[in-house]
């Protein structure tokens, strides 16, 4: 276990740029954009003589809201917090994708694999440490950064509104930062399970390809998909070519993008209603964890485990450095 921790630490040292700085910089840019939007709104507002808040109109509006309206405001604030995460998940998806693709290939290419192999580290522990880095370390850091950015964004918004006489704390108390945090952090194990086939496939290409792992990783499934489509092979199983594209090609390539699982299973999810108001809280763990009931998820986990096993085998026996 101690060795495994250090293996993960080593991955973090090497990929600090992708795991830590990429989300931090993205979060910073997100906050900057928000700040610019607020400033722009203020400027445009004052230029057109909109003096909102001066006569406490806004405060009046809030006072007149009933409980239902207030919960809507809360939901909107929560959504604002999630929105900081949206940009980060795209970045995280790319980071994980290219991290997996290079994880074994890069050390073979610069031959530093010979140094790692001169130490008493098993190939399975090494490859599994890379899986853990991709599916736990990277998303945990991205989520924490996203939450920090989300909270800062709320504070920025609140400060801006306070200049217009709105009671900030009243407004902020309507949001549910802890629930948002729990929902996002709680989603990580689900992300791990859903991402496994992609992570496995990319690691396998990384451990196997002699050159150009990206080309192999993308071209192989796409070419297979095209062949399947042209020859209508899926017809033999009473399935459409679309099924193959969605469940094999796209699943292998894009499962590492967070939220892909939710999108995939969108038809399965029932949107819960909250006191008559359709809740926009789509990240509610009660909802996202409905995915655990899908066969697609578990078949993917099995396939991922197989692919990771193959990657371990190739790292052990590929003799080209």
């Amino acid at each position: 276990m101690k060795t495994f921790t250090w293996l993960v630490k080593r991955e973090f040292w090497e990929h600090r740029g992708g795991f830590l700085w990429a989300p931090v910089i993205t979060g910073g840019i997100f906050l900057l954009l928000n700040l610019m939007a607020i400033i722009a709104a203020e400027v445009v507002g004052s230029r057109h003589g909109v003096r909102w808040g001066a006569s406490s109109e806004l405060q009046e509006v809030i006072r007149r809201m009933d409980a239902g309206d207030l919960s809507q405001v809360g939901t909107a604030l929560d959504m604002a917090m999630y929105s900081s995460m949206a940009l980060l998940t795209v970045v995280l998806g790319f980071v994980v994708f290219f991290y997996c693709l290079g994880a074994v290939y890069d050390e073979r290419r610069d031959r530093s694999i010979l140094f790692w192999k001169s130490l008493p580290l098993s190939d399975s522990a090494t490859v599994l440490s890379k899986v853990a880095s991709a599916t736990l370390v990277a998303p945990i850091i991205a989520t924490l950064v996203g939450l920090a950015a989300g909270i800062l964004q709320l504070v920025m918004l609140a400060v801006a509104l306070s200049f217009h006489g709105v009671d900030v704390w009243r407004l902020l108390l309507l949001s549910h930062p802890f629930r948002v945090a729990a929902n996002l952090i709680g989603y990580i194990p689900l992300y791990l399970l859903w991402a496994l086939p992609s992570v496995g496939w990319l690691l396998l290409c990384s451990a196997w390809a002699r050159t150009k792992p990206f080309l192999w990783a993308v071209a192989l499934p796409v070419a297979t998909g095209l062949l399947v489509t042209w020859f209508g092979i899926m017809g033999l199983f009473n399935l459409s070519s679309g099924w193959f594209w969605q469940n094999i090609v796209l699943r292998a390539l894009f499962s590492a993008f967070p939220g892909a699982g939710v999108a995939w299973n969108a038809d399965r999810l029932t949107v819960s209603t909250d006191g008559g108001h359709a809740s926009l809280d789509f990240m509610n763990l009660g909802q996202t964890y409905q995915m655990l009931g899908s066969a697609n998820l578990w078949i993917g986990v099995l396939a991922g485990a197989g692919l990771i096993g193959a990657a371990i085998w190739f790292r052990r026996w590929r003799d080209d450095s």
Partner: protein
Amino acid sequence: MSAIVTARSLSKHYKNATALDGVNFTIESGRIVGLIGPNGAGKTTALKAILGLTSFEGELNVLGYDPRTQRDKLMEQVCFIADVAVLPRWIRVREAIDFVAHVHPRFDRAKCEGFLKRTKLTPDQRVRQMSKGMIVQLHLALVMAIDARLLVLDEPTLGLDILYRKQFYQSLLEDYFDENKTIIVTTHQVEEIEHILTDLMFIRDGKIVLDTDMDAVGERFAEVMVAADKAASARTLNPLDERQVFGKSIFLFDGADRATLEALGEIRRPSVSDLFVATMKGTYA
């Protein structure tokens, strides 16, 4: 003395080449073995087989383990420097020490830091900022702090200047080697390691063509400087090699009678490089 490495009919075939062709050898504990051969003779393949980095046919026992199936256990007692400059380029000196200290049960951190004090390396320096010689200094400091029973060095000083090369082998002898350790080394710079070797192995076309200890080399081989008038009689004794220097001929004999040779001229112990050149004659022809 116990055998550290035992190979029985060790073979390795690549798609269209034979790298090792039924090789047999034994390496005892407490030796420094030079595995020497021309390019493509199978040196690296032999070392890779010993280190469990490649598949092979035949039997190979390293410290009681089969490198194919028990590599993870084997690597606790074996260490290697596969080539110069294979340390990951992003790693810092401090990180490298931290990492090895925590994953290797036989690593002595104080020893490693002691070795590094003698160099110009600083803890925050990254490998990518180092010269080739400095990378080797770091790698050697890491490896020498590991109490391994077998150390394998494959061209460890290739491309280094003479100062680094001398320092490399000197540290190895003074600070690392003892009777419980065994070192296998391959290099093309034979002259530089000649005096530190205890055993010599020549490999050519996947076969071991010479396997002897250095004391036996002096007994078995002799180099004789023969004046021109006696050259013809020297040739009748089946010399391995003949070359001309200042109008005299230098003959290299394998297992010839000492008394007969003394009659021909002055006898010297041949250098390993001369022996190597004579043995490998016609390799690239």
